[in-house]
């Protein structure tokens, strides 16, 4: 059996408060110091960070590479669209609930089929299954709007407790940014707790050696299925948050190259560290926005970055930084 070379090393945060507190303050201050456009970009990054965290629960923590996470993301975005179109609700909490539910249901179904497989077969299966949803979104255009997608208007936050400005950009760059920030912080906190719980340790055991984990008494398939569902829920949250930001739920969010982008984000930040996917998602979002704005051939640019990344920086941004830090420390 080929040993997995992915090892998740829990980040040893000497004093978390030392950098967590200033970081939080910085994030809170963003709408006041940065242009609305920049705040919006960061919102996109934080939303994708939740998806990438959910994705990395599977890859970095359990050792399963999914190439079908667009299914959960896109389904959640469509669910938000359906809630508006068919239930006439514009409550953000309904979007979130619907997104989590759709993510959980789809992941539960896909999981039953795919968690019996590992490695490349798992990747292909998740990819193929996600394409089913994509093809359905395309073919049932009278329900889903086909290529045009479904409109998702500005939602009502917390049942209208928060006063909402009429201007959409102002709303998205302030109220909605803070909403995203809170959901992001809660999701990250929950994920951290889970990864560092006994359940998280058993996942690491599965990733590092499936056979031994089974012998120790970990029910590998059940664990994998649970993780798959949890991962689907996190990605669903991200999809629900993304829908109002984007204003539309389109088939692109279900298409498998979008799954590839989620994988890209996790690898860019670093699979082995907890915060890697977060950093990767935010950086990727800036990178993509820059590339799309700069050139018509942004895929070429992103592909080249990915190729270089895989060849020379497989540990991602955080992994490479950590190694550099170790080297500096070793010299002293």
């Amino acid at each position, binding site marked *: 059996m080929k040993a997995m070379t992915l090892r998740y090393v829990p980040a040893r945060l000497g004093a978390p408060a030392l950098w967590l507190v200033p970081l939080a303050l910085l994030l809170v201050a963003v709408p006041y110091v940065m242009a609305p456009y920049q705040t919006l970009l960061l919102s996109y990054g934080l939303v994708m960070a939740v998806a990438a965290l959910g994705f990395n629960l599977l890859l970095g923590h359990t050792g399963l590479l999914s*190439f079908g996470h667009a299914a959960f993301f896109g389904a959640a975005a469509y669910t938000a669209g359906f809630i508006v179109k068919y239930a006439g609700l514009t409550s953000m909490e309904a979007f979130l609930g619907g997104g989590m539910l759709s993510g959980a249901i789809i992941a539960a179904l896909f999981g039953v089929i795919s968690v019996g497989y590992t490695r490349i077969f798992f990747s*292909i299966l998740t990819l193929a299954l996600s394409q089913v949803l994509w093809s359905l979104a395309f073919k049932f255009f009278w329900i889903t709007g086909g290529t045009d997608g479904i409109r998702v208007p500005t939602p009502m936050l917390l049942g209208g407790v928060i006063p909402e400005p009429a201007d959409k950009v102002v709303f998205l760059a302030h109220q909605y940014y803070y909403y995203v920030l809170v959901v992001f912080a809660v999701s990250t906190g929950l994920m951290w707790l889970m990864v560092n719980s006994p359940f998280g340790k058993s996942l690491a055991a599965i990733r590092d050696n499936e056979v031994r984990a089974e012998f120790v008494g970990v029910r590998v398939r059940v664990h994998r299925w649970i993780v798959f569902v949890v991962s689907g829920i996190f990605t669903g949250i991200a999809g629900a948050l993304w829908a109002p930001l984007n204003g539309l739920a389109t088939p692109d969010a279900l298409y498998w190259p979008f799954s590839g982008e989620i994988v890209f984000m996790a690898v860019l930040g670093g699979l082995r560290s907890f915060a890697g996917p977060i950093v990767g998602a935010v950086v990727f979002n800036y990178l993509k926005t820059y590339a799309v704005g700069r050139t018509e051939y942004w895929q070429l640019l992103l592909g080249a970055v990915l190729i270089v990344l895989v060849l020379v920086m497989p540990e991602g941004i955080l992994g490479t930084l950590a190694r550099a830090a170790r080297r500096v420390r070793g010299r002293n």
Partner: protein
Amino acid sequence: MDIVVVQLLNSLLYAAVLFLIAGGLSLVYGVMRIVNLAHGSLFALGAFVMAWLVGRLSVVLPPALLIGLLPVAAAAVALTGMVIEPTLLRPLYARAEEYQLLMTFGVLLVLEDVMRLIWGPTPLSASTLWGSFGSSTILGSQYPTYNLLVIGIGLLAAVVLWALIYRTRFGVIVRATSQDRRMASALGVNVSTVYVQAFAIGCLMAGLAGAVVVPIQGAVLGMGVDALVLSFVVVVIGGLGSLEGAAAGAFIVAIVRTLAISFFPELELAALYLIAAVVLITRPSGLFAHQ
């Protein structure tokens, strides 16, 4: 009656093209244990090269001679593969397969845009070649002769490939490397060379598929990504790494798709995936898996 014959021939045509694509994907996986996500883009590259060559040379050559461009386009794709494997894939064989998958995803992104850069966003057509063959009468039905030719090419490719893998010294070496890379290497097989050759043959098949398909349907951006996902269905049904499986899977997918399109077009793709899911649940490693 006519419609049945035509639909059957359409299925065969589709199966021939699918076999070429999925067979290449499966061959590369069988030998190198790499699932090449850029495989569909290599198929599209074959289509674009063919369409471009036909467009350039249709003024000087008689239309029927343009058929000679098929191997040229396929060879161009094989050459591309011979550049990709040593430079981008070889450094990754010792690493976890996640990185191999990601690398081929990166290659996919690059290839898709390179094609857009070279040939622009408008579809290319090579229908002069298709038209020049006219149509023939088969069992009382009119059917385009070129399509029959493609079915023949698909069959021929299957036979040649089978002979190459099972009846030649090269085939023995490829199969040995595929079963145990280290042992083959210890016995004096130059594994690096085998890998380049296997990857080039896989690319050749993808390129040939693209080249034969373009006179019928034209070359459009995005055709590669669609083809990749379809060939995944084929190899999931047939068993990844098995050529017989690719052939059987291509037939099944082609027939199901033809039926689905005539009876319930909305569920065309879903029906395919459903079949793949059923196969996976009942025969987890595919109908023709080696292991």
